[in-house]
């Protein structure tokens, strides 16, 4: 049977990816502690946006409730560390993935019955259920104070590394950088395989024409549900990795404007491309950190960037660069 070539070949992917991976691996030797920390935040958000884009970019569903899965991952880690006194980050991640799986499977089952604007509102309404529970049940969740997850309570690699004693902050940032980087690369690889698999192609067929996809035998609703669950799991992983770095989880990451920020990241990078959400998340993180640091009106800055982006550069950073590269290549 002749195979149909879809997408770039492995050699071409490696030619692009290998220098990027090498650069990321060497960066902490070049930049200072603070920049390293910002990059870790960028990676965690990149995992979330990557998951989110499986729905928006590849399945054509705009979720306005992905804060629910990020928050579920984060709060699960906080509960495991605080209540079960388990310190191994690996066990925390497994727990976070399990709880996100349950929530995403349940919410997804409900949400994929609708598309377009109804899908968006339904995801939003359900994410707000989780938010209001975290907000109101303060004796469990700490209410608006949230739950502290100190880095001293976390061990990496099945207890091989802990972060107590002097200089532990520095050690934590540098080891956690590589920890998150490896998980980030694994997540990217898995997502790459998913979107280039027959399943991923079927999702794109659903996005482009739902009726035709159903005619050729794609089980539309079930595939949307599976995509929803995978998307939620990626975002849940991101939430779990984000908590020890932030040291605190609050209901803010469950509130709907945070879902809006995930959408923002993805559109900033460009949701029509695979790498768009990754670039967008890292760029958004820098943008927000520097806007917050330089002005108390940082929301205004972000809002203006978003409006200009949508009006002038709707294909995002990566989409625009690709178009420019295409033009240069032709001339």
């Amino acid at each position, binding site marked *: 049977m002749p195979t149909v070539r879809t997408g770039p070949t492995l050699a071409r992917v490696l030619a692009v990816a290998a220098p990027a991976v090498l650069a990321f691996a060497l960066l902490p030797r070049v930049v200072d502690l603070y920049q390293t920390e910002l990059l870790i935040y960028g990676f965690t958000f990149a995992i979330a946006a990557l998951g989110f884009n499986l729905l*928006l970019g590849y399945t054509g569903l*705009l979720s*306005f409730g992905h804060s629910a899965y990020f928050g579920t991952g984060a709060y699960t880690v906080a509960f495991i560390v605080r209540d079960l006194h388990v310190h191994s980050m690996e066990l925390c991640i497994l727990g976070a993935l399990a709880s996100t799986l349950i929530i995403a499977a349940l919410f997804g089952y*409900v949400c994929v*019955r*609708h598309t*377009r*604007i*109804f899908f*968006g*509102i*339904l995801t*939003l*309404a*359900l994410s*707000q*259920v989780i938010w*209001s*529970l975290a*907000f*109101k*049940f303060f004796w469990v969740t700490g209410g608006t104070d949230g739950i502290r997850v100190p880095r001293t309570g976390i061990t990496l690699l099945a207890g091989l590394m802990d972060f107590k004693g002097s200089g532990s902050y520095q050690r934590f940032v540098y080891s956690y950088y590589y920890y998150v980087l490896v998980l980030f690369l694994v997540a990217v690889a898995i997502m790459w395989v998913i979107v280039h698999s027959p399943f991923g192609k079927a999702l794109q067929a659903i996005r482009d024409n739902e009726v035709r996809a159903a005619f050729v035998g794609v089980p539309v609703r079930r595939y949307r549900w599976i995509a929803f669950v995978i998307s939620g799991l990626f975002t849940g992983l991101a939430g779990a990795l984000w908590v020890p770095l932030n040291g605190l989880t609050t209901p803010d990451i469950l*509130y*709907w*404007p945070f879902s*809006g920020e995930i*959408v*923002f990241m993805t*559109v900033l990078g460009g949701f029509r491309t695979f790498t768009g959400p990754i670039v967008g998340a890292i760029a958004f993180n820098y943008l927000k950190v520097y806007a917050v640091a330089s002005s*108390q*009106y*940082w*929301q*205004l800055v*972000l*809002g*203006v*960037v*978003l*409006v200009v982006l*949508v*009006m002038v550069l*709707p294909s995002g950073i990566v989409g625009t660069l690709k178009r420019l590269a295409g033009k240069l290549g032709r001339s």
Partner: protein
Amino acid sequence: MDILVIQILNSIFYAAVLFLISAGLSLIYGVMRIVNLAHGTLYALGAYVSAWAVGSVFGASATGSWMLAGQLLLLPIGAIAIAAVGAVIEPTLLRPLYRRPEEYVLLITFGLLMILEDVMKLLFGGTPLSAGSIMDSMGSLRIGSLFYPTYNLVVILVGVLAAVGLWWFIYRTRFGVILRATSQDRRMASALGLNVGRVYVQAFAIGCFMAGLGGAVVVPAQAAVLGMGVDALILSFVVIVIGGLGSLEGALVGALIVSVVRTAGIQFFAEIELAVLYLIAATVLLIRPTGLFGRA
């Protein structure tokens, strides 16, 4: 018994405010198929403008019935200001995007939300702004052994008048016919010679006016604070999802349901009061996606 009367009055008061906001959101969705995420923030902006106008014209120590009348007359300025803001936003930010997928319009309104939140902080500062002097000088009514602020009855009256006025406007005037025609089939309306662009500006401005009016009437009773718009938006989402997107009757019934559930919730099940509301919205969306009063 007296408490029950007060609680019923409270939920109607709350429903009146929610109806004003949700009717605007629903009207904009009904005519333009836009979910305006900045709608709640426009409501908050209306509250700030009214409180600021009343405060700066009359000062804090205005007494006497003439002063009160003046303050009440000045209050709707928030609604008018927000309608003007809406009339600027639609042609500049939204119109260029109608040909693109609806996700982009949603994102623009999210960007607008962020911008307006900070514009409020920039213009009015971080401290709450209130027009409480109106509430104080109107005194209160005796209900049995309890007291109820007279001003809250004014708000209920405004809500009822707005509902009747909107109904008359949409179902009994020529402009209402044009609005409904555009909402049902935009291209057909345009082919029949209607200026769809103008209808869109007007519909958006009226929707914003309703949000601003909601803010204007609420500010003597509750001070305007940062973040009030983000909370209000989600509640009015719940309202129009229950009632049906784009339906005026739905907004009215939805507002009543939400406010009764909230009032009962605060009394009996305070922890899950918000969760119950969102679950009701999700259930309605599942069983009847067009809401109780929506048409497909």
